[in-house]
């Protein structure tokens, strides 16, 4: 069978800029941005106070602003990891089914463009909107840190913060691709939004506990390890593997290795066990450590988009 003719990119930039303009001027985006700003400001303010009071000689002072050391319940990273999925779902949940409901879909698709351009334009515009938001927020926090802490970040800190930003954008992309997928599958925008939010709640609240339980069921703990107070390696592997199905877990792990160079990873645990002194990892080693998580996030984003793309291509355009 001969291939279809013409470029699938025809009209992509038109769709992209219109959607971007829509997003940036929409009330929905304004509210979400305000929410993030409010939470972020509060959390960063408290982090800064804490840093000023306690830490005098910390080589990674700036990173503490994003992820305070110790068991802090509220950190900037936590706020981001909760709010970014909401923003992404908020941007994507009505992107395709909204066109059907407004009955604009067949009119737009009867213009000389492919469906590829419409879907990809929408996805890119959503990602660009999220990136603009995140970069703005990121710069605001750094600016605030400069004023409040009074010292500039070092080169390595800048590198780590840039990696953190990129990982966050990829994380946002995963949720955006997911919500666009739901907007392709469900004809009702309310259903798409609810399913998206429901899945987000499930993955962030229930799944970590469930992964522990399921891991225990698949590969029960060995009594010999338990007696020593250590986790059974097989069980731990299952539990970790399962919990990494949630993009939140992947994001958390990647961000921790970026922002906490001296984090208690498996290697540092091992070093302590062997009596070596744990020292902070250099940036390139942190990147290597977080590499699988970063790749998984980007792969997840592409995979979810592709599923949505395939379903969309096969859809009947009647409205």
């Amino acid at each position, binding site marked *: 069978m*001969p*291939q*279809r*003719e*013409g470029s699938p990119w*025809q*009209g992509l930039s*038109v*769709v992209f800029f*219109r959607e971007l303009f829509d997003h940036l001027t929409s009330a929905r985006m304004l509210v979400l941005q305000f929410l993030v700003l409010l939470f972020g400001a509060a959390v960063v303010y408290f982090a800064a106070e804490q840093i000023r009071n306690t830490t005098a000689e910390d080589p990674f002072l700036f990173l503490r602003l994003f992820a305070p050391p110790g068991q802090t319940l509220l950190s900037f990273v936590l706020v981001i990891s909760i709010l970014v999925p909401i923003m992404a779902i908020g941007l994507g949940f009505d992107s395709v089914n909204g066109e059907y409901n*407004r*009955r*604009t879909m*067949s*009119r*737009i*698709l*009867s*213009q*000389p*463009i*492919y469906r590829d351009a419409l879907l990809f334009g929408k996805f890119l515009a959503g990602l660009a909107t999220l990136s603009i938001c995140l970069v703005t927020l990121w710069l605001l926090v750094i600016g605030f840190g400069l004023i409040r802490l009074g010292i500039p970040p070092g080169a390595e800190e800048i590198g780590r913060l840039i990696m953190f930003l990129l990982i966050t954008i990829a994380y946002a992309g995963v949720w955006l691709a997911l919500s666009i997928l739901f907007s392709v599958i469900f004809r009702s925008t309310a259903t798409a939004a609810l399913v998206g939010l429901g899945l987000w709640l499930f993955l962030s609240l229930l799944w970590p506990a469930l992964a522990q339980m399921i891991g225990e069921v698949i590969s029960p703990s060995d009594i010999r390890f338990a007696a020593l107070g250590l986790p059974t390696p097989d069980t731990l592997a299952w539990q970790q593997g399962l919990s990494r199905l949630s993009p939140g877990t992947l994001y958390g792990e990647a961000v921790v290795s970026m922002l906490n160079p001296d984090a208690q990873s498996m290697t540092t645990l091992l070093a302590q066990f062997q009596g070596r002194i744990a020292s902070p990892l250099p940036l390139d080693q942190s990147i290597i450590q977080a590499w699988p998580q970063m790749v998984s996030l980007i792969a997840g984003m592409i995979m979810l988009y592709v599923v949505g793309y395939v379903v969309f291509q096969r859809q*009947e*355009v*009647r*409205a």
Partner: protein
Amino acid sequence: MTDTVIEVHDLTKRYGRATAVDSVSFSIRKGEIFGLLGPNGAGKTTTILMMLGLTDVTSGTVSVMGRDPVRQPLQVKRVVGYLPDTVGFYDYMTAVDNLRYTAALIGIPSADRDKRIASALERVGLQDVGHKRVGAFSRGMRQRLGLAEILMKDVSIAILDEPTSGLDPHATSELLEMIRTLKRDGVAVLVSSHLLERVQSICDRVALFNSGKIVLLGTVPELAREVLGGGYNVEVEAEGEELAIRFSELSGVKAVDQSGPNRYRLLAETDVRPQAAAAVVKAGGSLRRLSIAEPSLNAIYDHYFETHGGHHAAT
């Protein structure tokens, strides 16, 4: 034939076991208004979607200006304007902004855009509300805006799916008049509708759909002759003795129907008005009214299913 712009041959669409469109063939010539008529669910919209390459073809071929909509959809969509059933626009944007977006998608150079939008809006009578949000538009205004989009696109073929559905009689007449102006520009127009009578007035030829098949195809008088046995419907209002018998004796008259006291409807192969008038005078009666009407498609459609015994889905 070089004049043919759309050629549909043996087109079939199946959804699983159900056949939505069953071996449909027709062709549309340049500058012609072609009616795709029939009840809802008869396969009209599916046929249109296949012509635009928006849905896959199970078997058969479609050629639009010599191009295949499945493999060359961009070239086809460049020359075809489509007004979907109850067209939608972005409600929060103005009419002009909506058209600007479409113009950008079509690839109209930005220098021409505003000029073409303005002249298209003027032709459909929306020039005064161009900068109002479409959310405030009535249904008729939206349909007209959809027509403006087609005018702006400057196409060779316009496909209008149920353009008059949900419109009041006045808005319907206005819209039909605008569709006629498209024909004057040499555009081939394909109109689909379930309102047979309303749309037959503007159609040069019609195809009557039922259950995915084209049951009748041709001009309205042709179909009337074929199905009813006569192409003319003469109405007479006259007083006189035994007029019904006298009328039925006239040559060319196929049937006489007394529709009320002193009202007769003659179905004839030719225009029998002079003969009917003469018959009334000869009988010493007084003639009050004499008129001729094109046979209605509804009558043709109903009669076709009565005589062919097929199941009748018209509403």
